[in-house]
């Protein structure tokens, strides 16, 4: 179905990005997965070509593009056969640098946002902790003001780009006695390499090209100029940006599902069992029809949300619905696809097999399915 969402500029951007990904990313994806690392050079190339931070002000290297460019970007990242890479880039682009843009001063933006847009620095958002995942207000990492410094003590985990990245936008408690507790949360920029910051790389089920880390802050002294916005106001910024993060997660999920469907259709038309292509079996055809239907339903609402989000409207309820619906949907699609691939669907050399593992995280990361349903319920007045 053709949707009236993107204009000519969006489509031009798509063509350029698609060409770049096909030339510079897809051929190397397997190597990056094996090495568990994305080369720095690719970030720099993306920066030079305008594929990073394009929504930000030209003063910081962007072009002031609208949020629909983020949608185009996510769609292309999901179909370039480099699962973990897409996640790493979106974490940089849509989930972390956004806070510097949203809350930072001119000086802060020059210092951190500009090099991120150029691809010289890689950014991460550090909110989750061993004891606080979905429950953001429950974080325990503390930042105590001492003169012109904060002293940070605590631990973060599951931080995408946390191992090889440079800039950690870190959620901390600057006031541990605030009532309600979320009013004590602030965001502080911590640079990797600061004394007392150490990271441990985590091995995951999938998404191997993207690095995920546990980060320890041991009496880390950070100048007060690293505080983004005012003390105690970060929770609202986090909740606001979560909408963008979840919208992007939805677009990724829909686009990954579409990509898997296409791979599976090709397979089902070619693979012969019991004397005919398996696509000729009714149960298989119906399975593929169900996948296509689920994808289209999710895509329609996600585009509608993207358009309204880009206009600045509050679509929290619908984005929350979509985040879990699309995440569950893409897991179902990946499961069914591996089933139709048979034994090959379990072999790591097949993309559907890798995606089955990669995508398991999406019903958890960025707010679990259960949290999304809690939010929807609350917004329904329940």
């Amino acid at each position: 179905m053709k949707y009236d969402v993107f204009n000519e500029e969006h489509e031009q951007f798509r063509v350029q990005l698609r060409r770049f990904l096909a030339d510079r990313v897809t051929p190397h994806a397997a190597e990056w997965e094996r090495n568990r690392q994305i080369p720095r050079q690719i970030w720099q190339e993306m920066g030079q070509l305008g594929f990073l931070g394009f929504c930000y002000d030209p003063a910081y290297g962007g072009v002031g593009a609208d949020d629909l460019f983020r949608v185009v970007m996510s769609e292309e990242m999901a179909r370039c056969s480099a699962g973990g890479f897409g996640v790493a880039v979106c974490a940089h682009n849509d989930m972390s640098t956004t806070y510097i843009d949203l809350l930072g001063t001119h000086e802060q933006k020059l210092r951190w946002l500009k090099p991120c847009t150029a691809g010289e620095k890689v950014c991460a958002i550090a909110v989750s902790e061993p004891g606080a995942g979905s429950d953001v207000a429950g974080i325990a990492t503390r930042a105590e003001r001492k003169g012109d410094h904060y002293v940070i003590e605590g631990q973060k985990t599951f931080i995408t780009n946390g191992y090889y990245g440079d800039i950690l936008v870190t959620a901390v408690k600057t006031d541990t006695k605030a009532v309600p507790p979320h009013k004590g949360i602030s965001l502080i920029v911590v640079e990797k390499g600061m004394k007392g910051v150490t990271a441990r790389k985590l091995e995951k089920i999938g998404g191997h090209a993207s690095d995920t880390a546990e980060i320890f802050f041991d009496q880390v002294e950070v100048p007060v100029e690293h505080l983004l916005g005012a003390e105690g106001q970060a929770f609202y910024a986090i909740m606001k940006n979560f909408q963008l993060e979840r919208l992007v997660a939805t677009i990724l999920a829909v686009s990954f599902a579409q990509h898997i469907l296409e791979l599976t259709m090709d397979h089902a038309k070619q693979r012969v069992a019991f004397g005919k292509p398996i696509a000729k079996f009714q149960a298989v055809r119906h399975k593929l029809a169900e996948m296509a239907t689920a994808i289209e339903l999710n895509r329609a609402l996600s585009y509608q949300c993207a358009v309204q989000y880009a206009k600045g409207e509050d679509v929290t309820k619908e984005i929350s619905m979509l985040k879990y619906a699309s995440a569950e949907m893409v897991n179902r699609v990946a499961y069914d696809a591996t089933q139709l691939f048979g034994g090959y669907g379990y072999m790591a050399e097949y993309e559907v097999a890798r995606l089955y593992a990669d995508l398991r995280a999406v019903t958890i990361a960025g707010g679990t399915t259960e949290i999304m349903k809690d939010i929807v319920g609350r917004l329904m007045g329940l």
Partner: protein
Amino acid sequence: MYFNETHEAFRASVKRFVDREINPNMEAWEAEGVPLHELFRKMGDLGFLGIRYDPRWGGQGLDYWFETVFIEELGHVWGWGLPVAIMVQTNMATPAIDMFGSDFLKERYLKPAIAGEKVAAIAVTEPGAGSDVAALSTRAVRDGDAYVINGSKTFITNGCQADFLTLLARTSNDPGHHSYGLFVVPTDLHGFSVSKKLDKVGLRSSDTAELFFDNVRVPAVNLIGNEREGFIYQMQQFQHERFTILPITYIACRDIIDMTVTYIKQRIVFGKPLSTKQVLRHRLVEWLAEIESLRHLTYHVVRMKTAGLDATREISMGKLLAAQLLNKVASGCLQMFGGMGFMNETLISRHFRDTRVMSIAGGADEVMKDIVARMEGF
């Protein structure tokens, strides 16, 4: 109610073995693979590899309930690669030799398999023939006192370490099911090669291989039974294979749930343990209900087999239910572990990676449904 004191004593010895010899090594075996010869010899000494087989060949001559006890205890292993490797030896590659093989084959292959001296693999699947077993194209052509085998097999568990394969090959061009032979193929024969070790989503402690046969001359005495009846033998051997997933699943699912409950009881979210969340409690109970019914379907199957009845219909239904339940429980419990569930250092992540294949291997869900439909007469 189902097991007597002797069964329970046997259970205790299997449990001890799992606790002492298997689980402490699983982490290392996941990284490096299992030295099957070393492990199987220990298991052979304890009589674990020939539970139902004739004492004449070193077996224990015990009933299906003992076999069920053994498989149940393998459900406590921390990962699926090794249990699968063991069950290939006991339930997938050797039952046909036991049922249809000559004394020569039993002496030469079944006996050392039971003793754990030889590692076995079952070679049926081919690149172009998975669930559609009748489509396989590996050929065995009679030439004097041998059969000459040409072709390839894939997704073969234990394929890299096996000393012999129980291999299904086409022996005639005639259509229909009476055109295949089942052979015992030693892997030290000229022309046999492991063409590829396969990298999988999970089951890392088990090796899976693609095998190549280039004019491999197998002595004619290595044919199991009649050279035109191999497919029929394999269909019966499949019943022993498919049965294994039933006991192992309800035990492993129960362990997975227990481990998850332990976690959510101590995991505090929004000021309360996660275990107080109604949605999670209800979800767990739904799985427990399914686990309980799978257990009793299994015991029903054991009774049928003990009575000498054909349980193909019930085993096919059980395999379908078990594989789907397993995937549901592994993925659903991973969800309850949150971000930790996606990290390889957690056992739940291994269960998730390992269990996906159970709906595919040994006959896909779709094939189980086709079998049942056919048996139901539609």
